[in-house]
């Protein structure tokens, strides 16, 4: 130890300097450093909004974040963004921090359905309206949030099932790739699909691919060994479908023709897969919720009562529509 004392001392000094620099230099200094006054959001003052997002785990999610952030800039609002890295504890922490900062409103995209009562009660006590985006929550007291702006996941599942029924004439052996267990979209899309199935359509296997491409591919590979005679694949999101398509190709099957593949989200990669003839259909789930979310926020801050649910309409896109629609896809 004794022969490295000098470099270590320099290292320690540098460490202190770096730590100070890191904190001082965090982020660009053009925007206001931190929140405006606490709680005195009077007229003419820039509104401060806290946005607690799930994470940055997919292109869809990042598109949703960008949409809301850009819209906030457009309207001249201050947005504090918190990324929870997929953990509910982090989201709760962020919301409590927003309350402590004295934000004027909170936008929350809840990662799971349960567990929000304590923190939403705190927000209510502080008089801060909460707008939910993208996913719903299970609460006994609906006054805890101002409104929910989301797609109707149950309807999305139903649309997929109905399309599949018309395309296959009512008979199919379907493998279902579910989303993350406990996530509202996964639960609802499963329900909507199952409810709309006709008697000849059977789900022969259903497992979670966790909304990820890798998950979709691995689960598909394993299920192909056990159920080689499947005729259709229903994936809760495009990423899993794209992984499943790879697995099908490697097994020597032709996705799109031998095996019908339908999924939900409507990301650009899905459209490209449709143009290539590998994906049969995708139900759009629009992540560009910025305008609607901020409309709701502004109204809530003014004290208006809003309808509990604002449903973002979805459309089904099929293979033949893909090429024409591709240039319009923004996410």
């Amino acid at each position, binding site marked *: 130890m004794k022969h490295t004392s000098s470099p270590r001392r320099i290292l320690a000094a540098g460490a202190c300097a770096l730590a100070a620099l890191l904190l001082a230099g965090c982020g660009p200094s053009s925007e206001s450093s931190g929140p405006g006054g606490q709680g005195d959001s009077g007229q003419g003052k820039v509104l401060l909004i806290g946005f607690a997002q799930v994470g940055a785990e997919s292109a869809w999610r990042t598109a949703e974040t960008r949409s809301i952030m850009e819209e906030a800039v457009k309207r001249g609002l201050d947005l504090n963004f918190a990324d929870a890295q997929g953990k509910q504890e982090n989201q709760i922490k962020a919301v409590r*921090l927003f309350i402590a900062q004295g934000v004027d409103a909170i936008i929350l995209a809840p990662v799971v359905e349960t567990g929000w009562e304590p923190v939403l009660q705190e927000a209510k006590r502080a008089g801060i309206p909460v707008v939910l985006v993208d996913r719903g929550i299970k609460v006994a007291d609906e006054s805890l949030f101002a409104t929910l702006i989301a797609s109707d996941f149950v309807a999305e599942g139903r649309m997929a099932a109905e399309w599949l029924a018309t395309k296959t004439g009512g008979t199919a052996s379907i493998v279902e790739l579910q989303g993350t267990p406990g996530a509202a979209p996964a639960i609802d899309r499963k329900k909507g699909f199952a409810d709309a199935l006709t008697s000849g359509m059977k789900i022969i296997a259903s497992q979670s691919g966790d909304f990820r491409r890798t998950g979709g591919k691995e689960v598909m590979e394993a299920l192909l060994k056990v159920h080689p005679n499947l005729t259709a694949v229903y994936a809760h999101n495009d990423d899993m479908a794209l992984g499943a398509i790879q697995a099908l190709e490697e097994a020597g099957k032709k996705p799109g023709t031998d095996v019908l593949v339908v999924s939900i989200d409507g990301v650009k990669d899905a459209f490209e897969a449709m143009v290539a003839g590998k994906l049969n259909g995708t139900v759009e789930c629009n992540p560009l919720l910025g305008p609607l979310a901020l409309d709701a926020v502004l109204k809530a801050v003014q004290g208006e009562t809003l309808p509990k649910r604002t449903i973002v309409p979805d459309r089904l896109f099929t293979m033949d529509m893909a090429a024409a629609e591709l240039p319009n896809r923004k996410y």
Partner: protein
Amino acid sequence: MNRWLNHRTLPLLATFGVLVILYGVASMRYEGFFTGRVMANLFADNAVLGICAIGMTFVILSGGIDLSIGSVVAFTAVLVASLVGPGGWHPVPAMGLAIVLGGLFGLGQGWLIHYFALPPFLVTLGGMFFARGMAFVVTKESVGIHHSFYDMLLSMHLGLGGRATLPATALIFLLVLVVAVGVSHFTTFGRNVYALGGNPESARLMGLPVAGTRVGVYALNGVCSALAGVVNTLYTGSGNPAMGMGLELDAIAAVVIGGTLLAGGVGFVEGTLLGVLIFGTIHSALLFDGRLNSWWLRIAIGTLLLLFILLQKEITRRATAQARPGT
């Protein structure tokens, strides 16, 4: 050196200094950071991590390590949630059962580690897998809790003046902290833990109850993790089997930042408190900034971890060199 400023306490003081600097810089940069509310939030938001880290401190002081705490927290949380919600139990016996199970689980791990001389890293790794799997066996999705007892607990607040309050979660954390400080400084068990971590062979030769201490430390950690799971149900009002992933590594980070050596025998529970507060301050500061994406958060935490450890090493090295001139 004197009683208060020797090579053992110096790292602790250094960590405290770092916390003060960190909080100070953040307060200067972000308006509203230097408020009672934010400080109180540090305790409430990091209660789960804090209780786990306190239990982990004892394990690390004894020379071991426990990777299973995140999974045990998740398991106890879903157990309590499932018993109270769908099961219809009253929360108090549910929490009691969960804590007892946590203690037994830790006891089992400690037993395997001591009586078969198995490496703690691996046994607790197995424990982590086991507890996580069992949490998903109990329920695949998160379960909400609605009970008047919980409502009562959640409405308990200790006002600190202004808008700062300490909710039940923070109070439990502080209680555990006080008990832990008492145990580590004023009981035989605490002394045995330090002795065991310092040199297991010497401890054995001195006639200290090595078996009891080692097994006890893991049982204690199990109880702490289970308690943290209960606190988590208070924090989120539900039990989620997927929560707590990576919590053990955060706890280890907090313990290490607090000045406890992973080799064992050196460190203080108070240091762990400081470590948890530093963790929380960094997280809060980055959230206050409001512009950083999740990846910057990870990079920042990793970098700061590195810097703090180097800083502490340097201070300890200098202090030890001064204490032993002519090395």
